[in-house]
């Protein structure tokens, strides 16, 4: 049984009005425990709508979502439980901070779960550690933190709920390159140490290819591809056709292959590329 199974999922905005639009169209897939999945697509490709359906913030107009084999909308009154299991970090999550101290803000989710005070404290501390927030910052007001710290505090607020599945919508948007790298490696190490499932939405194929095991490519509300990272990049040219950027190094490899060099085109990191090119020279 898969951890999360999505069957013929569709969502239509503004049914019956002039603005009617199918945001997600007949998506079916299953996600296993422990996978790190990257989701990529244009603005308006339906990826935000898709992930919001996964934790019950948006109710699908058609299709079902099974979490641990159970339809999440079976009992609409229990949808909050689903949201604790499927944690969601929105774009620019720092705008959701509201408490007097960072500690209290991170504790908001666990508190809503109805946990005991000791456990809440423990969870706040460990969540803060995952995102590398120093303990002295926890007593400060969230509005005194720097931009990057705010972002990490907000992510900690979701991690503290200890969800089985963590979904992050463009967590690196608006960060500088260093901040981006640090955050991505923190997410990656969180994934490794907890061995839970992570879904990461991003614009950057470069970022995603570095850390995701599998990639879901969305295009115009449809599932364009869903496969292991390596296999996705063997379809590099098709992906470029729908207007998505592929990593620069993949482009180079495709270009070289076109010029007659016997090189694989499913390469997405510079190290792999170096190895392949050196191998070619040796022959």
């Amino acid at each position, binding site marked *: 049984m898969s951890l999360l199974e999505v069957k013929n999922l569709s969502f239509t905005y503004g049914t019956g009005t002039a603005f009617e639009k199918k945001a997600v169209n007949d998506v079916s897939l299953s996600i296993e425990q422990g996978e790190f999945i990257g989701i990529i697509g244009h603005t308006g490709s339906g990826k935000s709508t898709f992930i*919001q359906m996964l934790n019950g*913030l948006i109710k699908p107009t058609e299709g079902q979502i099974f979490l641990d084999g159970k339809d999440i909308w079976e009992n609409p009154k229990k949808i*909050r439980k689903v*949201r604790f299991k499927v944690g*969601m970090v*929105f774009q620019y999550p720092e705008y*959701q901070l*509201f408490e007097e101290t960072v500690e209290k803000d991170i504790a*908001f989710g666990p508190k*809503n779960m109805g946990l005991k005070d000791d456990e809440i404290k423990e969870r706040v501390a460990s969540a803060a550690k995952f995102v590398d927030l120093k303990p002295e910052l926890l007593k400060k007001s969230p509005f005194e933190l720097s931009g990057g710290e705010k972002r990490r505090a907000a992510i900690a607020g979701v991690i503290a709920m200890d969800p089985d599945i963590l979904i992050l919508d463009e967590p690196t948007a608006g960060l500088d390159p260093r901040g981006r790298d640090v955050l991505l490696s923190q997410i990656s190490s969180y994934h490794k140490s907890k061995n839970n499932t992570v879904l990461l939405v991003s614009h950057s194929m470069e970022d995603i290819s570095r850390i995701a095991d599998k990639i879901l490519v969305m295009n115009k509300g449809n599932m364009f591809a869903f496969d292991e990272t390596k296999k996705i990049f063997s379809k590099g040219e098709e992906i470029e056709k729908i207007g998505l950027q592929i990593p620069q190094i993949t482009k180079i490899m495709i270009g070289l292959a076109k010029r007659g060099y016997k090189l694989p085109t499913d390469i997405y990191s510079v190290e792999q590329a170096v190895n392949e090119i050196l191998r070619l020279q040796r022959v």
Partner: protein
Amino acid sequence: MLKEITLGQYFPGKSVLHKMDPRMKIILLTCYIVFIFLTKNYISLAIMAVSVLGVLTLSKVSPKLYFKSVKAIIFIVIFTSALNLFYGTGEPIWQWGVLKITQAGINTAVFVAVRIIALVLISSVLTYTTSPTDLTDGIEKLLKPLTVFHIQVHEIAMMMTIALRFIPTLLEETDKIMSAQKARGADFESGNFMNRIKALIPILVPLFVSAFRRAFDLAMAMESRCYHGGDGRTRMKVLKYSKYDFMALGVLTVIFVGVIVCNVMLPVTIRTGM
């Protein structure tokens, strides 16, 4: 959910009403509102009601939107009508304990209901067919004479433009913050009154913070572009009355005269209002 709110929203279009000068629309709307309350018998009320429907048709905005704006106030309409129904004076037609319904009560109830609905509909026409910038331009021009009293008309108009401009932005922002807090298990739908009020804090605090941030950013952007208030400022688009404005003025004058004539010639059914 919040996106459903249509109040103060503009729907671009090419109808006659869209082409009218905002100043004329504001003036005629004001007259309309006055005349809705001047109606004294069913005939003049019917004239106003029918002409409101006529204006709605001319606007070519989907009837669903008008229906929605009425739906928003239907509770108030029912409540005030019901209240008036039982407070009429005169011979009771129906009585049950202290509750009694009289002919006068029924008349007032009908008048109140029709007046409120007509008021909301006709005001929606203005906002649906006039872009916020045109609207405030119109208001600014109409209030210009007040500068004599040292009232800073341009600044007021600018503030209104900005406020209107940010309604959809803030609604969208509220939606986002609500989703984010819901994802952290916030519960807005259950609990007693106090709990529900408390549940608003996680929404209101971030909303205020972001509203202030936007305000500061905007002030900075405006200053960077050398904005310094209304003195010596000229307009790219100068408002001009067109033939549609005079046509509208003509038609509505006929309607208004009709209402006055009906009021004077026919027996009065209702004395409340103006």
